């Protein structure tokens, strides 16, 4: 089974700075149809963010012609819409009334009218419908893990040294995986451009961990990341931080090199999330992929040397 090169880059990109261990690759088989699904519910929210991508024979498979990814939870359904920059990456939101028990299903369905509902002309009369695609009915299901709540530190704290420790404390029962994900944005005293990047680290889900500021924001060395993540990824980080990993794997994240030795740092904001993950079930029609349900909690702190 081959692994798509873009996906293999995930470990490299996300672990250059202080990963405790590599984030597992998502394997995309080079035969058959594969799906990647991520559903995430942030503490305090009632709507889960869902993102999905389909691959056919290892290549991105766009959903077109009325074929679409639909997410359902109990009696609620929503169509995942596309992101302009990618031709097979879709996202949306769905209400989850009972997060601990509701099953979330993502399926490939044929919806010729709903997918054209934003058009100005009467699509019910004027329609080119190629019919259901060969993947119709393929589905994946997942359950979210137990809720997570960050109980320490207090949000909005400012740290002044890279040796300072962020004492993380949280609640909830362990699931399959647990990660710290931070979205860091630093402003320079000399350069008008911000630097933004994502840091991720797997951790034990034992309700306590100390994180050193310097592990997230190094003083020297080069970090391969994006100088400007752009609206799409930034939006994801704000509302769906775990999906940043998917964004990286799906190619939205274009690496560039930051040399911290040459960067006159003024201050940084650190959007910090703890993400508990639970693996879902890929339907038998799919040949591979990944289905993950996440619950997270986040807070923002500041580093101002």
């Amino acid at each position, binding site marked *: 089974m081959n692994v798509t090169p873009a996906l293999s880059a995930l470990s490299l990109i996300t672990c250059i700075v202080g990963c405790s261990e590599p984030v597992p690759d998502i394997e995309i088989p080079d035969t058959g149809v594969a799906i990647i699904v991520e559903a995430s519910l942030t503490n305090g929210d009632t709507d889960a963010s869902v993102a999905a991508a389909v691959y056919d024979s290892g290549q991105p498979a766009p959903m077109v012609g009325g074929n679409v990814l639909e997410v359902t939870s109990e009696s609620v359904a929503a169509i995942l819409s596309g992101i302009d920059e990618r031709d097979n990456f879709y996202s949306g939101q769905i209400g989850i009334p009972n997060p601990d028990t509701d099953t979330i299903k993502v399926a490939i369905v044929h919806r010729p009218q709903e997918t054209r509902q934003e058009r100005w002309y009467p699509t019910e*009369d004027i329609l080119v419908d190629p019919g259901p695609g060969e993947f119709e009915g393929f589905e994946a299901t997942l359950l979210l893990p137990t809720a997570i709540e960050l109980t320490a530190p207090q949000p909005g704290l400012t740290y002044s040294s890279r040796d300072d420790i962020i004492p993380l404390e949280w609640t909830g029962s362990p699931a399959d995986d647990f990660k710290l994900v931070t979205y860091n944005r630093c402003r320079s005293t000399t350069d008008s451009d911000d630097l933004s990047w994502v840091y991720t680290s797997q951790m034990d889900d034992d309700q306590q961990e100390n994180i050193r500021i310097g592990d997230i924001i190094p003083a020297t060395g080069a970090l391969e990341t994006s100088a400007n993540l752009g609206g799409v990824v930034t939006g994801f980080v704000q509302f769906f931080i775990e999906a940043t990993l998917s964004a990286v794997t799906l190619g939205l994240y274009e690496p560039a090199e930051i040399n911290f030795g040459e960067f006159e740092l003024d201050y940084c904001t650190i959007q910090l999330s703890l993400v508990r993950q639970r693996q879902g079930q890929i339907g038998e029609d799919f040949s591979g992929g990944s289905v993950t349900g996440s619950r997270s909690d986040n807070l923002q702190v500041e580093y101002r040397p």
Partner: protein
Amino acid sequence: MKPFSVSTKLISLAALLLICSLANSEPYPTTQSSLLSRFSVTPHIGISQADIETDSAISTSNQPEFDSNLNYGLALEYSAISWLKLEVDYTRHRESETSKQRDIAGEYKNSLTSDIVALGLQVETFQYSKTRLYVKGGTLIYHTQLTVKEYFDGVYPSGEASESDRGQGYYAGVSLYHPLDDDIMFMLSINHQRLNDVFSDTRRAFDIRYNSLMLGLAF
């Protein structure tokens, strides 16, 4: 599709104006030649811009912008009195097209053609030397065809679907006539035609507005 239904109010108004004008005009021509002399035929050609006005209650993110189109047609005019003409005009608006737009179903673009028969009056409002300016207006009936071409990123073959509709509307404009010799006049016209309630039996009915510049020769 609904059958033709011409606005009775506009027809009545036009008829009333015509009767009144005839009543106050010079004696009705008694010979066939003098009657024919009151008629003129004007083939015309020009350029138009089609705009779509959708129902604001319908939420659509992709508003169409059609490119300009060629128009041509033929007008038959009857001079009831020196300052008033009755006209019947046929105009064909050839295909105008949008650029490609994209949504989750794929890429698509629309094209539009319309055939319009207009009935109305022209009232002379200004004269300079032999040049005459008329203001005109009236009712119209239309037959319009909307086409969509859809493209599916090579996953499925692209395709095309069309549907047509008929209805009514109105028009207004100004026409300038300048004699080239005793029998031929040059005509320059600016027209606004409004085609109301296209595909009115659907939930996405819309109006079409054609703004046109036309040149013609009146014989």
